[in-house]
């Protein structure tokens, strides 16, 4: 039998993290959470999560930044908004999950080869570079970066898509690509960030 | 009226006189207190039994004595403790507003709000909002303006008198009944 120590010391907290999240537009209502668990009750993916959405809410509020940003939960959120509309305190849980995903990506604390953040990153890059998404290319890049072997397994699906005329390797792009770049740079400047 | 003059003292903060009815708005302000809601310290509340008691002269008097704004609070329409004193106030308020506009006093400076005894938060919101709006407008400073106008009138009167004196006595023109200086005493 292997035993694990689960106690949390005050040093494990990152004081101010909760307040910081709650100051982000859309995340304010978290301070009203009563830990009722409705979010987990309606979440179709809560059954796979290491922390239920309710637990994530409490961990955020209690400044357990590392636990939250390294959790699987935030990556399992499929953005279906069921929790947000059912929450009796009208907490926009989906938006809080987005905020946590952003922090995890920024601080690069997500698990390596974990496909979801990679997908988000590749997605963003493609929008930035081309203005549009070419799904087939996007998904292929994700597989290549995360699970090169699994990509082979998906070849059947690609073939099917090809047959039904839904497979396109061509990169769709907009004409004024520099507009996108400039808009994004302007947002970054405003937020005092430099392009990663 | 050009109020936001360059000479606004740095520590200037608006002074607002509030007339609150005893049954709804005054009680709401009590509730705001009991609930420890925080709001700007710029309002001085005067209690009346009903907003219907607010005489337009109270508003004018307050402004002429240096208030930068006046807030009137009464029960919601239909909820007046005295059946319809608030409606009576509303009618007077509309006339008053027209008059204030003619005087060049900006609309946000005089405000009528229906606030029920349960709406402590509304007291907080209205007072904060109004304080901010008047801060943006700057001081009304009617007393100083009165003084300025007085100076102009007096100067004008002196000038006329001097001209009259130069032109020699005129039997048709009676001397003013009282000195001009007394007009705004």
């Amino acid at each position: 039998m292997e035993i694990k120590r689960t106690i949390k010391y005050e040093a494990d907290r990152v004081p101010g993290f909760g307040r910081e999240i709650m100051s982000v537009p859309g995340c304010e209502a978290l301070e009203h959470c009563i830990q009722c668990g409705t979010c987990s009750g309606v979440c179709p993916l809560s059954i796979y999560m290491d922390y239920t959405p309710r637990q994530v809410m409490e961990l955020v509020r209690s400044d357990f930044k590392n636990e939250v940003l390294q959790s699987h939960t935030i990556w399992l959120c499929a953005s279906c908004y069921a929790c947000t509309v059912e929450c009796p305190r009208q907490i926009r849980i989906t938006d809080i999950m987005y905020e946590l995903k952003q922090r995890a990506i920024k601080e690069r604390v997500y698990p390596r080869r974990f496909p979801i953040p990679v997908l988000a990153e590749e997605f963003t890059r493609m929008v930035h570079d081309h203005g549009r998404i070419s799904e087939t290319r996007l998904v292929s890049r994700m597989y290549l970066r995360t699970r090169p072997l699994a990509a082979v397994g998906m070849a059947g699906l690609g073939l099917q898509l090809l047959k039904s005329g839904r497979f396109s390797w061509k990169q769709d792009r907009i004409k004024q690509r520099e507009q996108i770049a400039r808009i994004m740079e302007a947002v970054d400047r405003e937020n005092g960030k430099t392009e990663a | 009226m050009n109020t936001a003059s360059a000479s606004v003292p740095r520590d200037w903060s608006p002074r607002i006189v509030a007339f609150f009815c005893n049954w709804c708005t005054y009680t709401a302000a009590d509730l705001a207190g009991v609930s420890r809601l925080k709001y700007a310290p710029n309002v001085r509340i005067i209690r009346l039994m009903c907003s219907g008691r607010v005489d337009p002269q109270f508003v004018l008097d307050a402004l002429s004595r240096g208030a930068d704004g006046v807030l009137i609070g009464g029960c919601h329409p239909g909820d007046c403790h005295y059946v319809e004193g608030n409606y009576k106030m509303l009618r007077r308020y509309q006339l008053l507003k027209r008059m204030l506009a003619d005087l060049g006093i900006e609309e946000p400076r005089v405000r009528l709000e229906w606030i029920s005894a349960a709406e402590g938060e509304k007291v907080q919101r209205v007072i904060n909002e109004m304080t901010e709006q008047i801060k943006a407008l700057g001081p009304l400073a009617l007393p100083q303006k009165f003084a300025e106008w007085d100076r102009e009138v007096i100067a004008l009167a002196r000038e006329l008198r001097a001209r009259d004196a130069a032109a020699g006595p005129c039997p048709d023109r009676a001397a003013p009944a009282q000195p001009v200086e007394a007009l705004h005493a």
Partner: protein
Amino acid sequence: MKYAYFPGCSLKGTGRAYEESLVPVLRHLGVELQELEDWNCCGATAYMAVDEGKACAAAARNLALAEQTGLRQMLAPCSACYLVLNKAQHYLNEYPAMRQVVGRALQSVGLQCNGDTVVRHPLDVLVNDIGLEAIRQKVTHPLHGLKVAPYYGCQIVRPYATFDDQANPTSMDRLLEALGATVVRWPLKTKCCGGSLTGTLPEAGLRLSYILLKEARKRGADVIATVCPLCQFNLDSYHPQIAARWEPVRLPTVYFSQLMGLAFGLPAEQTVLHRGMVRFHPPPVPAPAGAEKP
């Protein structure tokens, strides 16, 4: 009736059957669409996970392009686009600070977003602008006897329920009934299909798709009708994987617009049923209802 039109990336890619069927159906009903000039990706859900300011800005560029058309109403058929554009609109109205940041960013490329474009979903336009009666009149090949499970998915009624009930939307139910189909009542019509997790975490994502297919079949559906390219992809494309993990559930999933095309008697190149991986074979249709002439 004329609307600005934002197709979104999916409708040009794996979800092209949606556009290929929706545009002719709307044209048949007298609706004109003006595709935005040089639109960009709305940002979808993935961008929100990286930077909500930039996600809003990306969406706002499209809103600004829409305003240039002067049409005020914009059709966004893809659920993710519909949600993201609406959400950006909400955020920009709700948070002045964000409105300023995004406004200045757009200004730097000579664009302006006032936030007065109404982003509409085709279901909304069909039921509320065109009306079921007008649709009923165009039906020449009613779908009598066809049992359809209406599947709305998550993002068109959540979190912004603007044109239908959040918990129990009925616009597609009524639309399908107007086409003559029998609507299958099921409690899963707004449940999540798994979204992008079908690709990234198949164990979790595919299970949700499987539950939908299984329950629709159990309640007697011949076909699932959907409004979202990602839902359609998930419910249509992973049958071998689902069969391998749980059980085979060969139930076709089509866009509601494809069923409309069928009921209107539009040609096969406008109903594009061949795009489905689980091919939907419509039941033999009796003589066209409107064709009986003396």
